[in-house]
Every structure is written in structure tokens, then in C-alpha cells.
């Protein structure tokens, strides 16, 4: 009898943890199912409308292309800014920084990663936007404004500002992973180089960076995934206008992203087609971010396998 009850408890617990996992899997699947169901009205209405270039709530036209392109552009620019900053900081951290500086830097990276997005937003909106307008956009427009990409007028709130704020948000992601990769460079290689009279930079350049190349690439992709889905800070500083990229290609124009559109319109949308178009955009965002994240995971799995065979 006792045995029986133990067996019962044992299998009950097994089913409990297994069941909980299935619930989690169920939630994940339901995200797709629910978004697909609720996008349905917009998809039947016009399957291609979401890729149109006009978004006009009052006339019931919901073309999401400016938002999709804004999402891709702001994230790509942010990643481009973040790569040198993160790699520079990581190399400095692992190779040059004294121990105390290193401790301080790791606190900074940790705190940066935990500051909520909405806080980056309020800072970007009220502190950075006017400065960027007066000291970055206006001089640039004044000197090379004839290039369409940098043409005026200077609105503080812009695609450029959103990319800049995103940069600060993804630097800790790339840095923390890169630092752990660089610190795990095999010591023998490193010492061999140094005994040959190489400078620290040469060691980094020829040993540590090539050794961690793939991992750093994965970290960058992960950061890209994060940037694509970032909402609050972007919504607060991008200007939420549908000018970009059709009526102006300038990086200094206000623009929109999928996330900024959903965040600023969904709660006040009453028209069912409007709601459903926003949800369809969300579904597109989900597919994009999952693809990006999945490719990063694939690379990471490959690295850990390589590590195992070495």
C-alpha cells in the first residue's frame, strides 16, 4: 500500500512538471494562434494591404510598410552604432582595464541592462532630443544637407534619435557576451603570442577576436532581435509619423516602427479593421524576431558543439 502511494506521488509529480511544461508550450503556440485569428479580418479584407505605403486611419487604409521599414532601419542603424562601442568596451575590459575599473564597468553593464525601456524613453524625449536637434542634426543638415539621407528640417524626434537610444539599450547585450567570449580565449595561444613579443592589441587582433568571431556575431544577432522588438523608448522618441521613408528619406525625419504604431494606436483604435491591422503587424514582428533569435541560437549551438569537440 505504501509502495503504491509512493508510486502514485512519484508519477503525479512527474505529470505535474510535465503538464506545467506543456502549459508553457501551449501559451507559446497560442500566441501565434490568437494573433492569427485576430489578424484574420485584415487579411481577408486585403491580404496585401499591410505591405502598402499609406496608413490613413480616417479613410480605413492600413498600409504597414513605413512601419516595417522603420523597424528594420532603426534596428540596423542601432546595431551599426553599437558594434564598435561594444567591441571597444569589451576589449578594453578584458585586456587593458585595471581590476577596479573592471569591477566598476561590470556594474555599469549590469545596470544598463536592467534600466527599463520607458526610462530610456523619458530621457531620450526630454534630455537628448533637443540636444540632438541643435548640436547634431542642424550642423549636419547645414553642411551636408543636400544629401537626401541627411536633409532637413531638423526635428528632434526622428529615426536617428530612436536608433541612438536603441544603441545604448543593446550595447550591454553585445558587451556582456563579448566579454565572456574574449575572456575564454585559450591562455596558451595568448601566452605564445606574448612570448613572441606581440603587443596586447596584436594579441586581441590576431588571437582573441578571430577566436570569438562567431560568438560575437551571434551576440550581435541577439541584440538585433532585442532592438526589433523594443517598444517604449522607440515610441517616445521616433516622432510617430508616417513620412519616412516615402515622403522623406532623411534619417532626421520622424518615422514609425511596428512597435511604436501598436503602442500609440491600439488602445484608441475602435475600427475593427484598424485593430486587426495592428495585430497583423504584431504577427509580422513576431515572425521576424523569432527568425532572428533562432538564427542566433543556431550559431551558439554550433559554437558549443565546436567547443565540445576541441
Amino acid at each position, binding site marked *: 500500500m505504501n509502495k503504491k502511494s509512493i508510486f502514485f506521488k512519484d508519477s503525479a509529480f512527474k505529470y505535474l512538471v510535465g503538464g506545467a511544461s506543456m502549459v508553457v508550450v501551449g501559451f507559446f503556440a497560442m500566441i501565434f494562434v490568437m494573433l492569427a485569428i485576430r489578424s484574420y479580418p485584415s487579411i481577408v479584407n486585403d491580404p496585401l494591404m499591410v505591405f502598402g505605403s499609406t496608413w490613413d*486611419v*480616417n479613410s480605413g487604409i492600413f498600409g504597414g510598410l513605413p512601419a516595417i521599414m522603420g523597424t528594420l532601419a532603426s534596428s540596423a542603424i542601432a546595431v551599426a552604432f553599437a558594434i564598435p562601442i561594444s567591441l571597444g568596451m569589451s576589449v578594453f575590459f578584458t585586456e587593458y582595464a585595471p581590476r577596479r575599473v573592471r569591477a566598476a564597468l561590470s556594474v555599469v553593464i549590469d545596470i544598463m541592462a536592467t534600466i527599463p525601456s520607458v526610462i530610456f524613453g523619458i530621457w531620450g524625449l526630454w534630455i537628448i532630443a*533637443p540636444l540632438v*536637434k541643435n548640436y547634431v542634426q542642424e550642423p549636419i543638415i547645414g553642411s551636408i544637407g543636400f544629401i537626401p539621407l541627411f536633409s532637413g528640417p531638423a526635428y528632434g524626434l526622428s529615426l536617428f534619435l530612436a536608433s541612438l537610444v536603441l544603441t545604448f539599450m543593446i550595447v550591454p547585450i553585445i558587451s556582456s557576451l563579448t566579454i565572456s567570449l574574449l575572456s575564454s580565449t585559450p591562455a596558451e595561444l595568448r601566452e605564445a603570442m606574448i612570448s613572441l613579443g606581440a603587443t596586447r592589441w596584436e594579441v586581441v587582433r590576431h588571437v582573441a577576436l578571430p577566436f570569438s568571431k562567431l560568438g560575437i556575431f551571434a551576440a550581435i544577432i541577439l541584440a538585433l532581435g532585442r532592438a526589433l522588438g523594443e517598444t517604449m523608448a522607440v515610441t517616445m522618441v521616433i516622432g510617430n509619423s508616417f513620412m519616412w521613408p516615402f515622403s522623406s528619406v532623411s534619417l532626421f525625419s520622424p518615422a514609425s516602427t511596428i512597435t511604436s504604431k501598436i503602442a500609440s494606436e491600439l488602445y*484608441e483604435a475602435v475600427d475593427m479593421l484598424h485593430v486587426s491591422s495592428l495585430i497583423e503587424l504584431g504577427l509580422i514582428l513576431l515572425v521576424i524576431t523569432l527568425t532572428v533569435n533562432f538564427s542566433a541560437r543556431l550559431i551558439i549551438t554550433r559554437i558549443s558543439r565546436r567547443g565540445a569537440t576541441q
Partner: protein
Amino acid sequence: MSFKNRKGISKILAVGIVALVLVAAGVFYYTQIMGAEQPATVTAGGASFPYPLISKWTSEYNKLHPLIQITYQSVGSGAGQNGLFAKTFDFAGSDSPLSDSQIAQNPGILHIPETGGGIVVAYNIPNIGSGMNLTADIIAKIFQGNITKWNDPAIAAINPALTLPDLGIVVIRRSDSSGTTDGFTTYLKNASSVWVLGSGKTVNWPTGIGASGNSGVASTLQQTPGGVGYLEFFYAKNNSIPYAKVLNRNGQFVEPTLSSISKALGAAAPLLTSDIRASVVNMPGDGVYPISVFTYILVYKDLSYMPEARAKAVANFLWWVIHDGQSFSESLLYPRLPSSVVTIAETNLRQLTYNGRPLL
């Protein structure tokens, strides 16, 4: 079997105590708030034009009736009307009355004028303060993109005292469906022969930046030198954005003030007696600010579709708004309703019913 160490236990204890305190605080707080009156939550939304005042009203009303919670979302008149039609809003704020076709599609909606206000032409020109003179024709040309520089001869001619800069004009207008836009364009259609864009909650602007809500226009304007936009008076005044004097039918350049707007609404009040939806812009009269409008609360006559407590709360709140609520208007720069308009509002509110019984 004792792998637990003492430290772990004390940690769990600490977490437990924190949780208990929180639960206790919650219970205390619930017992505090639960009283005798029947609680009701009312969700409303619409025009941003009267938002500062409605926000004040809901807050003051909650102080008097702690169990009645009314939330008003400032989403624009158009979204407010749609929300009312969909019955996601229990009542809507709208600066423009319903059109004939809207009434045909959604019968049984009452118009309750709850306050009014002025729409000001606000601008951001370095070194130029409030008081630039403008006429309906010049405003029309600016917003149609016919006048593109602040030092245009037409503007300079009626502003001899000002040194106008050679600065491009950036038109800032609403992107959402807005009663403020309706009032503004109705005025231009009415008062200017050169205005060709028609009137409505949205029009096809040939130029400019779109911003959402009165607050969106206000903040965009503040960040855009050379910008010009139309705003409810409070938003311009409170944000210290300069605004223009506008030529009225009596040939005076009138500055928007609480008194010049009140004069306009007083002159317009008789029109409402015959038609609650009458257009009241561009009223004649001495010292009248011409771009002044009434703003309405829209509510279904028959509130049987909502819980009874909520229906009662809506009716009582609206009654309070047109009476005691008016005492808060002037501190927020909105004129009090003229007494003849209060009478109209009373008559309309008495038509509210719940399952056939009048609510008031």
C-alpha cells in the same frame, strides 16, 4: 533529510512576511473603500479639447462619490464617437455634433452641451509673442500652403508693429479625427472666401505635419520654430505658446480670452434653442472671439444596455457637470455654460431612461 540551512529558512520567512504584510495592506484597503453606495466604473472618451476640464470633473466627482470611478480618455472626437457607437464608451466627448447620416445610422443619441471654448491660432516664431493680427483669409492661405513665409506682405500689412522674420511656415495640424479641426475648418469655410478645403473632422491638408490630439499639436509646435497650429485655448495658454488676435465680424482684432470666448458663446446661445447642433462660429458682436465653439457630451437615451448602477452614475454625473461642475470651468479657462444652454442640457438629460424608467 535536513539539507535546508538556517539561512535559507530565514530568507523564506522574510519573503513570507513581506507577502503577508502586502496581503494585509490589501485587505485593509479594500475594507476602507467598500462603503454603502453602489460602486460603478464608467469608461468614456473622445475630444481632447475639453480634456483638462473633464479630467478635473471626474476627479472632483470621485471625491464626492468615492465609489464612482469615471475614466475619460482623450482620444479625439472621431474616436470618441466611434467608441460610443460600438458601446465601448459609456459616453463620448465631441466638439462636433453628429452629422445627419451618423444620426440615421445610430439613432437615439443625445447631445449635451457641457462647455465651450476658443480655438486659437498658435505659433512659434522666435522673438514674437502673443497678439499678431490675423484675418480669416490669411489663416486660410497659411493652412492651405498659399502663404509660406512669416514675412509675407499680407501678414506684414496688418502687423506694422512687428518685425517678421524671413522664416518658412510649418503647418501643424491634427492627424486624428478631431472636433477641433471641425470647428476650425467650419470657421474658415464660413468666414473666408479663399478657403477651399471644406470642413469636417478631417480634411485633406495639402501641407504640414500631423500631430495627435491637442497635446500633440502643442508639443510639436513647441519643438518647431516657424510652426503654426490650431489649439484649444487652454493648451496654448498653459504651455505658454503665443497665439494670434483674429478679426471678428465687427471689424475688431480680438484676443482670445475667457471673456471674449464667453461673449461669443453668449451670443450663440439662442441658436442652440432651435437646433442643438447649430454651427456657432463667427458670431457677430462687440469683443467676440470668432473661433469659439460649444463642445458636447454624446450619450445614448436608453442606457438599458449597461448595468443599472453604471447608468445611474452616468446620469448623475452629467447632471452634476452641467450644474455644480460649471464652477470649475473658469479656473481652467473654459467659459461657464450660458443659463439658457443649461436649460437645454437639462431637458435633454431628462430623456435618459433605464428599462423605460427615467434616470433623473
